C-alpha cells in the first residue's frame, strides 16, 4: 500500500511481558517517528530516525523502551517488561525529510496496546 503500515493493530499482553510493534513507512521517506497517544494526553513524542543519523531518543519514557530502524526502512518499537501504564495507542509516522518542506507527517493507524 501507499501509506504507513503498522502491525499489529491490536495487542493484548500480560504485565511483565515484552512486546514488539512494527512500522513500515512510506517508500522513500527518510524520516520516521514514533508517538504514543494516551487518553487525554495528546501525542507524546517517543523517538525519531532521520536517514543514517543517530536517532533522537529524547522522548523515550524509560530504558524499557527501545526502537531500531533496519536498512533505513522498517522500524520496530520494543517495550520490555510491560507495565499497565504502557497501555496506549502507538503511532508511527514518516516524512520525506526532517519535518518535510510542508512539515507533513504521514501517520499509520496505530497499534493499540493493552497491558493487563
Amino acid at each position: 500500500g501507499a501509506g504507513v503500515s503498522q502491525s499489529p493493530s491490536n495487542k493484548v499482553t500480560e504485565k511483565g511481558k515484552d512486546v514488539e510493534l512494527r512500522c513500515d513507512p512510506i517508500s522513500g521517506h527518510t524520516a520516521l517517528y514514533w508517538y504514543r497517544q494516551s487518553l487525554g494526553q495528546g501525542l507524546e513524542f517517543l523517538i525519531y530516525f532521520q536517514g543514517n543519523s543517530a536517532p533522537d531518543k529524547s522522548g523515550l519514557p524509560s530504558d524499557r523502551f527501545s526502537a531500531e530502524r533496519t536498512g533505513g526502512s522498517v522500524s520496530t518499537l520494543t517495550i520490555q517488561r510491560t507495565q499497565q501504564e504502557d497501555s496506549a495507542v502507538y503511532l508511527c509516522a514518516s516524512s520525506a525529510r526532517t519535518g518535510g518542506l510542508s512539515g507533513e507527517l504521514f501517520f499509520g493507524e496505530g497499534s493499540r496496546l493493552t497491558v493487563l
Partner: protein
Amino acid sequence: QQQVKQSPQSLIVQKGGISIINCAYENTAFDYFPWYQQFPGKGPALLIAIRPDVSEKKEGRFTISFNKSAKQFSLHIMDSQPGDSATYFCAVLNYGGSQGNLIFGKGTKLSVKP
C-alpha cells in the same frame, strides 16, 4: 513543561456554526504551525499549516489565524458540518532547528450536532 497549550479540551458546535480552537506556545524559535485532524481509529492527518511570515491562511472552510507577538494561533472552522467531528491537534516545530519532531498539543474533541 508543556511547550504548546491547546484549548478547549472539547467543543460542541451546532451545524453551520463556527468552531474555534486555540493554541499558545512559549518558544519563539518555533516557525512552523500545523493543525492535524484525527478521526476515531485513524492516525492524524495534516489539515492546514502556517509559517510565521503571514497572519492568516485559509483553505476552504478552514482558517489559521496567527498572532506572533502573542505567541498564539488558532483554527477556525466555518460552517461546521457533522463530518468535521473529530479530534484536532495543533503542533509546533523549529523547522531550522536540530529537533526534527513535531510537538503536539493535547487535542480538542469537536462534536458538530446536526
